[in-house]
């Protein structure tokens, strides 16, 4: 079946925010029936461009054309009317409403009077056609990241979408889920949809996209290039505008599998003595029968990197929250350096040197309306930034934040800018600098490189490794299997709230894979 091809032209689009030029004379041609990848470093202007396409931002200069006819969007609705839908990286869902309510919200064809049974059937059909499994009647705040993404995807799909914009769609998915998702993207394209695919994962881009465009510093460095014959290396080089020397390191990825360049040739510090006492321990932790942790035993030693692998939504959130003191387990004990601290609350954990880098940078890690300096001291201003009379020592905060921004190469703002103005990667670097400050004993990082470009991800990994080398215990909770395999001394696999396996380097990939799928019992 052939579909008439519709073309969406981005013609000389520039977007200025005050003096900042986020997009500068961008030119792209997007066709239906194709997957067009847009890649670029953090802050390269990808998100801005996508917002322009989705009607959420108006370009300062330039035009959009659909089949040669200039169009201008005054709202997301205008873009939707022309069949352009966007799946946002941070979802934009109404948390208190159910998945189904979110899916149909704002839909043009929604009748005045809602027949929920009918709507449910409609969405279920769509789910079945795409082999998606989603609890439609649960409020969104109870859903995992993967489920939230399915919700946003369905939201776009029930509308008559000709162009689907996916912003970092696989960032929150596990390798297995991602694989299925990419197949789904391909299917959508063959059915005549135009998919715009924003991603940092180059192997993924090359496997799914027909065409690729590269943005750098807001300009199109590569436009509408066919992906045929393009190697990840050349694409990576193009993306960063240079070829970073460490990317040449000859880590030998097993055949047929591409290790992300950001994970190649990392120096793993030596594993600590397995007889040394653990910094933190979980003993038989239980957090609820449904979706919670069940009888979890866990230990991490000084200088050890322990990874918790598994498909997201298997209890990872409870795990990090129990270990960081945010959540009180219903059963079992939490020990820090041998002392029972169960239920003591996050400030006690914090004081004892536990740091936590949340997977949710925007909601849990930072507040968009705080300055970078305030964000930087959000956790320890009591100890470190207090002047007489209990006021904040702003001078000290500004000074130290400036140092941190320089040391961690945070771009896109100074100590007085608001967090909301930073791109995801830069925000992550800022948050990492906050958690690494002082003398942490244990750092819990949850999806630390999610949505980051190669450079930023590499930087984050190196910082984690150097913290471990200086004797800090690291708990890496990640759904990126390659990441956990490359960085961990010890690997736990979590499945449906239970620890399925614990293994030491060198890891048996097939065994880990089976444990992630819940196939193998035995710890």
């Amino acid at each position: 079946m052939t579909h008439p091809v519709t073309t969406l032209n981005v013609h000389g689009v520039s977007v200025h925010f005050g003096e900042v030029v986020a997009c500068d004379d961008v030119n792209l041609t997007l066709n239906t029936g194709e997957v067009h990848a847009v890649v670029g470093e953090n802050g390269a202007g990808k998100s801005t461009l996508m917002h322009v396409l989705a009607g959420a931002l108006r370009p300062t200069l330039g035009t959009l054309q659909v089949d040669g006819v200039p169009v201008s969007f005054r709202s997301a609705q205008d873009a939707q009317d022309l069949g352009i839908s966007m799946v946002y990286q941070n979802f934009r869902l109404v948390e208190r409403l159910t998945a189904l309510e979110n899916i149909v919200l704002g839909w043009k064809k929604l009748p005045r009077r809602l027949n929920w049974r009918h709507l449910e059937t409609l969405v279920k059909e769509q789910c079945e056609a795409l082999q998606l499994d989603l609890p439609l009647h649960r409020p969104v705040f109870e859903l995992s990241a993967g489920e939230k993404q399915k919700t946003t995807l369905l939201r776009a799909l029930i509308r008559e979408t000709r162009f689907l914009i996916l912003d970092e769609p696989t960032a929150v998915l596990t390798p297995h889920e991602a694989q299925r998702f990419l197949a789904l993207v391909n299917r959508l394209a063959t059915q005549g949809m135009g998919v715009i695919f924003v991603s940092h994962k180059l192997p993924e881009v090359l496997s799914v996209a027909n065409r690729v465009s590269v943005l750098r510093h807001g300009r199109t460095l590569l436009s509408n290039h066919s992906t045929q014959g393009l190697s990840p290396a050349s694409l990576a080089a193009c993306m960063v505008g240079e070829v970073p020397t460490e990317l040449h390191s000859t880590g030998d990825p097993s055949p047929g599998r591409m290790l992300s360049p950001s994970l190649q040739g990392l120096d793993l510090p030596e594993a600590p003595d397995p007889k040394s006492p653990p910094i933190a321990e979980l003993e038989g932790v239980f957090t609820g029968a449904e979706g919670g942790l069940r009888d979890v035993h866990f230990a991490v030693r000084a200088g050890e990197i322990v990874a918790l692998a598994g498909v997201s939504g298997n209890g990872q959130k409870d795990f990090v929250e129990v270990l960081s003191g945010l959540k009180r387990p219903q059963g079992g004990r939490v020990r820090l350096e041998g002392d029972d601290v169960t239920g003591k609350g996050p400030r006690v954990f914090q004081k004892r040197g536990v740091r936590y880098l949340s997977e949710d940078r925007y909601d849990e890690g930072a507040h968009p309306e705080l300055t970078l300096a305030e964000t930087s001291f959000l956790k320890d201003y009591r100890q470190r930034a207090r002047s007489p009379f209990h006021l904040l020592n702003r001078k000290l905060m500004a000074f130290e934040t400036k140092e941190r921004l320089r040391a961690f190469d945070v771009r896109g703002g100074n100590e007085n800018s608001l967090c909301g103005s930073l791109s995801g990667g830069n925000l992550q670097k800022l948050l990492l600098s906050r958690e690494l400050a002082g003398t942490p004993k244990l750092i819990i990082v949850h999806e630390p490189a999610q949505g980051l470009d190669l450079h930023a991800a590499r930087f984050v990994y190196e910082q984690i490794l150097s913290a471990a080398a200086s004797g800090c215990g690291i708990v890496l909770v990640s759904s990126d299997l390659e990441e956990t395999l490359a960085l961990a001394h010890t690997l736990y696999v979590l499945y449906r709230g239970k620890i399925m396996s614990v293994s030491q380097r060198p890891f048996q990939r097939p065994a880990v894979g089976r444990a992630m799928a819940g196939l193998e019992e035995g710890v």
Partner: protein
Amino acid sequence: MNASFMENLLSAGVERSLPLFYAATGETLSELSGVLNLGQEGIMLASAMTAVAVSHTTGSAMAGLMAGMAMGGAMALLHALLTVTLRADQVVAGLSLVFVGTGIASVGGAGLVALRQGVPHFEPWAIPLLSDIPFLGNVLFNQVPLVYAAYLMIPTIHWWLGHTRAGLNLRAVGENPAAASAMGLSVTRLRYLYVVVGGVLTGLGGASLSLAITPGWSDGLSNGQGWIAIGLVIVGGWRPWGVALAAFFFGTLQRLTLDLQGSQSEFLDSPLVGLFLRMAPYLGAIVVLVLVTRFKKRLGAPEGLGKPA
């Protein structure tokens, strides 16, 4: 306490809760759209006065009611203009609305005080058959027509929130304006709409006060009920049924204190006890609020409440 005391109390409680119910329901709609309107007291006063003035001039209580609602809508429109378009702080704008409303009511109502009860107003109308039911008939179905309108309004709004497109849009826009906007809804339009609709309902509450509960105008007629209404929204958990029950509870409580003061007991008639009795509803409001916050994990306040779009 005998049965007829109970019957009279509950019957009067239903009547008393009427202004609270309308104001609190209006506030609920406004807050669901994400706009906190602290101006309820001012809106109620201004619309109560307007209702009396128009009812007196035209000789029609119905015209007075309409005028009161229009006044409420107009004042809420001012609130929407300040908070949605001009992005003023919702708390500050709401508080200033109280002063505006109180001022309008005092100035406009100066000549109306002398009218006392001589204005056309609503009389109770017993529903045939239903009002013959023992006890309940007198409590529920021997009331002013405005009460019956409220009976219809509660399930209607409940159904409307859950089963219509507009209801869904309203729930979304107050929770997450950014998401609603990304889905193509006009946050500005929705907020204007529901702030004004909320104001019309509050105006209805004010008018019911001066045209049905205590006919006629006197300065400060609403006596803090606008403030209680805002509390009731929280107690009622931003749900129509909850708000209605909370309004009934407080209306009855208010009435109870009046009844107790009017009794022939020497103890209850002493000035000190009288003061405490008059304080009781407000004290009750605080206690219930504390209980509600204590025992309900997620209170249910719209996430986007108070935030500009």
